[in-house]
């Protein structure tokens, strides 16, 4: 009897608790981003006078912050247009190069039997657990020595190396799910290995490649440490992340203007995330079931 009532009580309690927890978690996850967007539309004076406001008052919405943050420095703005351009160049080049490198690599690891095939993914992933700051030191020295430290291309090469391992890992898992018999059939029809890869497996793997591209784009767009080490001396080369972090240290730029910068930095990522959320969530946890 007591057990039944315990069951009953617990169901009631956890039922209520569950709603409370979901509500609190949503609040904690979303509020900072709401607050970011909200502040970006408010004039600084209003924020200082009424810091507790949580909903826009009529007539208070102000797009001036976006204008200021995007205008070039020559015209008195913060020059985020340049940062957006730099970030886009870096992120898109990283995606293209990383895919060029990792699609063949993932295919090889998944399909072809060669010496060291099993070890190579382990090595790649193992490397991934070294602190980024440890890698940063020699790369900083190296790129300084060859005079490439302030360039976007140097940064792209570093990023490609950083994402290659994860990228191969994600793509390999997908190639593994494509039946090898399809390619064998093509081989009987006279296709070489590479032709079979191009005409059979690659088209089938397109969803995985697309989600991998988005994943790499997000990493490159968000990255901070290497951008800081490589590009900090030359403002015209700053990425959005770096620009925001550098400007937020100075008192001269109003917080609301920088909030507009934060929104500009965050929105592309959130949009991409919601476009690809289903694939990404699956890719990140692939293999989790095995424990």
């Amino acid at each position, binding site marked *: 009897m007591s*057990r039944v009532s*315990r*069951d009953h009580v617990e*169901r009631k309690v*956890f039922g209520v608790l569950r709603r409370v927890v*979901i509500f609190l*978690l949503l609040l904690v*996850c979303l509020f*900072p*981003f709401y*607050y*970011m967007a909200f*502040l970006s539309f408010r004039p600084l004076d209003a924020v*200082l006078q009424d*810091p*507790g406001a949580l909903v826009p008052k009529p007539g208070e919405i102000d797009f001036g912050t976006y204008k200021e943050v995007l205008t070039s420095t020559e015209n008195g703005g913060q020059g985020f247009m340049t940062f957006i351009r730099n970030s886009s160049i870096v992120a898109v080049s990283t995606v293209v190069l990383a895919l*060029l490198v*990792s699609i*063949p*690599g993932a*295919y*090889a*690891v998944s*399909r*072809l*039997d*060669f010496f060291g095939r099993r070890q190579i993914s382990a090595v790649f992933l193992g*490397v991934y657990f*070294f*602190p*980024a*700051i*440890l*890698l*940063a*030191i*020699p790369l900083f*020295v190296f790129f300084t020595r060859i005079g490439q430290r302030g360039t976007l291309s140097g940064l792209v090469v570093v990023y490609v190396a950083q994402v290659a*391992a994860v990228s*191969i890992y994600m793509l390999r898992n997908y190639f593994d799910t494509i039946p090898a018999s399809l390619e064998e059939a093509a081989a009987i029809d006279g296709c070489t*290995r590479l032709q079979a890869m191009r005409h059979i497996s690659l088209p089938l793997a397109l969803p995985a490649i697309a989600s991998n591209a988005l994943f790499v784009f997000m990493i490159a767009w*968000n990255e*901070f440490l290497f951008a800081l080490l490589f590009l900090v001396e030359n403002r015209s080369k700053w990425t*959005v992340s*770096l620009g*925001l*972090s550098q400007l937020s240290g100075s008192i001269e730029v109003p*917080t609301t203007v920088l909030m507009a910068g*934060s929104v500009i*930095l*965050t929105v592309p*990522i*959130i949009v991409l*995330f919601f476009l690809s*959320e289903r694939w990404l*969530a699956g890719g*990140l*946890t692939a293999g989790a*079931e095995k*424990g």
Partner: protein
Amino acid sequence: MPASGPTSPADSTLRAPDPPRQDDPPRRRRGTRSVRAREDRRAGYLLISPTAVIVFVMVVLPILWTVSLAFQDVRLLNLSTAGIIGDYSLDNFTEVVTSPGFIDALVTTMVYSVLGTACAIGLGLVAALALRAPFRGRGLVRACMLIPYVAPVVAATFVWKTMLNPQFGVVNHYGTTLLGWDDPIAFLSSAQPVSLFGIQTHVSVSLLTVILFEGWRSFPFAFLFITARMQAIPESLEEAAMVDGAAPSQRFRYIVLPQLLPTLAVLTVLRFIWTFNNFDDIYLLTGGGSGTQVVAVRVYDYLINRGDIGAAAAQALVLAAILAILVTIYLKFFGRSEEML
């Protein structure tokens, strides 16, 4: 080539140990297969080589180079003359390990990693449990919970810094007006130690804040993993427990939790490694001030502000070595029990 399907009767005889069958047809088959295998091997090397080269040049070599740098007296100023071969000595290590603040930074790193990992996994578990039963809009809620993890770290830290600002931050505003705080709390610049039951701890207010930030930012990762594992638990187990009259807490304790333990163990290792190595979050939130200087931030400080590359490299190596030791110990202790489950 004889096409023998796995079900053909000839195949079942082939299964027997067959030294006498080493005659013509199989040998020919093996011959063509080895041509194919050799081609595959060559194609394999060809296809993997771009990745291998870039990872070797941009990751493996730099790691080795760090080792070399750590034993040399290299500074930003004499960088152009320093080579691979120089005067090797242990000076950097002695300097780094005996320098004031190093042990402190190490303790801070440990506290940050342990509590940050616990916070992230705890929150992730709670979130996964709360979202376990289906309801309308669950997919959307799940997606929303991943946002802290995917959002750019610079934007996330900046908005936290603004929210926690003592002058116009929304947290301090409501803390003083609604919650009755006497003074605004300088969450990110207060070195005041947090006291627990009257005992002063190593944790400063700022360190606690960055730990909470780490929990907030990383719990979605744990949430994703745990949710994926929970979906794989067979429903019949819990149904049987329910028939036996197990209350929800008992079902969690005796059915769900044991199934999750291996996943939680893996998550702990992953999160611990990443938190231990974390640089961005603390650098952006506090710059390493007021009791939050972890070793990664200290390495950066040596590298950029002091220009002492050798000491920075030595410190990074010490960091990596300690991490390796900790992970090995962890696997020694928990690796076995994990297999048993």
